[in-house]
């Protein structure tokens, strides 16, 4: 099924390898494949969830899209326009379209700048000249994220984590972006505050027509906010499906394991060993999950699996996908 709307953001075969230097002369001895051929699509006014364990490359994907890092391969198209080939100067106007919210609200705000100064940076970049216009816009932004206007003159250390995250959101909104990359925006917050921030993000999406790339490892939150979810493992997308489909009929053994690790999740028909440590050495050629997979067979060792469509918009990177009972809700899409 090809979507009728052109995607706001289309990421294809995105790669980022970090060289590992060792020894006295710092020679390159291999590399970490942080992002190894990631494909994503974000539709306008939708939320794409990106889930996976720590270190699987989720944040690197966001930083690559934001061009805080230079990709080693692949393309990023924003609104149909290829942005990886643009130089910094040509990319500058597009920066206003894509913004980012960070995980740690303590390090994401400059401790020596007041809230107003922090936001005014973005307001100025948005092209609002004139002090009174800037002040008006800052006040408007603060109200939008539910902060009192009086907080403008205060410093970040005077606020709680949730309040700081609101300031971070206001800063991201200051240039009126279309897409916001949320890099685990709630994982550093209290549970009660998490709900507030999530609802704030949902309201802002409805109000301003934003699209989100929502990176998280909290599956409950992802199921609540996301329209489509991609599961990432060792730098690759292993399963991509509409949120309801993914949570009702997970297919990849890694997704199953993630879901099984969440307390109070729905009963899954086929349960892998939860938290099974690596029994075998990582497979050099085969499936990235092969060493941990309870269902690993000969095919998996020889060749890495390709993305397989198991129904609707549900794709899985697993040789066993079609064999497994995973897409019962979508019988017409079966292969």
């Amino acid at each position, binding site marked *: 099924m090809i979507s009728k709307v052109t995607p706001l953001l289309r990421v294809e075969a995105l790669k980022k390898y970090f060289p590992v230097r060792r020894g006295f002369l710092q020679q390159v001895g291999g590399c970490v494949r942080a992002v190894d051929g990631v494909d994503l699509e974000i539709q306008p006014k939708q939320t794409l969830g990106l889930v996976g364990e720590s270190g699987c490359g989720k944040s690197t994907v966001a*930083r690559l899209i*934001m061009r*805080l890092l230079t990709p080693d391969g692949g393309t990023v198209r924003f609104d149909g326009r290829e942005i990886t*080939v643009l*130089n910094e*100067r040509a990319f*500058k106007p597009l*920066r*206003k379209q*894509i*913004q*980012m919210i*960070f*995980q*740690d609200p303590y*390090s*994401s*705000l*400059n*401790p*020596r*700048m007041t809230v107003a100064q*922090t936001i005014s*940076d*973005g307001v100025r*970049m948005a092209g609002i000249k004139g002090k009174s216009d800037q002040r008006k816009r800052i006040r408007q932004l603060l109200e939008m*994220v*539910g*902060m*009192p206007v*009086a*907080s403008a*003159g*205060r*410093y970040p*250390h*005077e606020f*709680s984590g*949730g*309040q700081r995250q*609101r300031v*971070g959101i206001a*800063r*991201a909104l*200051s*240039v009126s972006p279309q897409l916001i990359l949320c890099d685990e925006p709630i994982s550093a917050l209290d549970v009660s505050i*998490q*709900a*507030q921030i*999530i*609802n*704030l993000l*949902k*309201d802002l999406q409805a109000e301003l027509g934003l699209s989100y790339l929502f990176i998280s490892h909290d599956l*409950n*939150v992802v199921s*609540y906010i996301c329209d489509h979810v991609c599961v990432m493992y060792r730098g690759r997308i292993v399963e991509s499906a509409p949120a309801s489909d993914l949570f009702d009929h997970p297919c990849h053994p890694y997704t199953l394991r993630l879901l099984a690790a969440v307390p109070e999740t729905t009963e899954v028909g086929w349960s892998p060993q939860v938290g099974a440590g690596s029994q075998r050495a990582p497979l050099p050629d085969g499936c990235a999950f092969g060493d941990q997979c309870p269902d690993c067979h000969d095919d998996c060792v020889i060749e890495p699996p390709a993305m397989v469509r198991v129904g609707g918009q549900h794709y899985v990177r697993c040789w066993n996908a079609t064999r497994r009972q995973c897409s019962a809700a979508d019988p017409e899409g079966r292969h």
Partner: protein
Amino acid sequence: MATTANPVDRMGTDETHMPPSRSPWAETWHLLCKNRMALTGLVIFLVFFGVAVAGLTVTSGKDPILDPARVRLQEKLRPPFSAPKTDSLRSEELPALGIYILGTDDLGRDVFARMLQGAWVSLTVGFVAVGIAVGIGILLGGISGYYGRQYIQSGHILFWLLLVLAIVLAFQKILSAAAVLLIVAIAGWLWKKRHDRRVSPLPVCLKWIALPTMQVDTLIMRAVDIMLCFPSFFLILTVVALLPPSIYNIMVIIGLTSWMGTTRFVRAEFLSLREQDFVAAARALGISDTRIIFRHIMPNAVAPVLVSATLGIASAMLTEAGLSFLGFGVPPPHATWGNILSDGKAFIFDAPWLTFAPGVAILIVVLAFNLFGEGMRDILNPKLRERN
């Protein structure tokens, strides 16, 4: 988790009664007042500053109130608080305060007046030398920390070689050749810059221009290591021996040989701050490098620089006193604490005040600066700040 968002949900929790706002500087001042040692250091420093400024005004000019250079041979080696012998002195030779507060030296000069004159030297040496050192340190440390991963290309080396050659030629009065070299260098630089903006590859015959040689960070940090290899006091001695003795030369030389610590501090701060999310956010907004460096990183990096500068002032004063003591410092008859000490060492048993007065003064001022510096280090440490 709530499924519907209501207005109350969008509000943060406890905004209604926030404590009064306090800027980071106000916070620092508050903590400083709590830290007795640092406060004492600051007070002594302020007193010293006042004394030095007052001392400059009363001991300089054509007809100073307290003349540090007035020789009274009949009054030599008088102990502190002794009254002058009025019968043997002309009226203009009498000390302005009626007594010799700190006694007189072997030429009958008023030690108190000389100490006042020396205080200004110590102060300016301390501040100017540290100013130079911190300036160089922030510049090199900042470059090393922020742009350190970038490679110096052979084109850059060529540019600087041409520039240096042009300057040398200009000094040799071969101005036309110097001008040609300068124009060639700048034109080449601008051409390369324009070329970099378009993402086209260099022509094959000019490929070598973009050849990477070494990282900026490597160059600067190895320069620091080399400078640190010399025992700095002997380096200063060597340089001082080659240059005409003057108070300004001393300041500049001390400054030029003590920037390494600051450079390392600033580099370390920049390295850690550069990776912080707020810098990433600033870059994501498209803010220019200059603004990121000066508005976002620098204000967060000044704290340790301030500490090392405070400690640096104390060590610069000590170095100056040491140089003057060895006779390489400020040329006589201008008094500094170092050369008062040096002059007095011959009479240490007959006139101990000649060595004690400058010695104790140096001790107190250096101690005050060290206390203040150590206190500032504690105060500006964010981990301690959280506790208060």
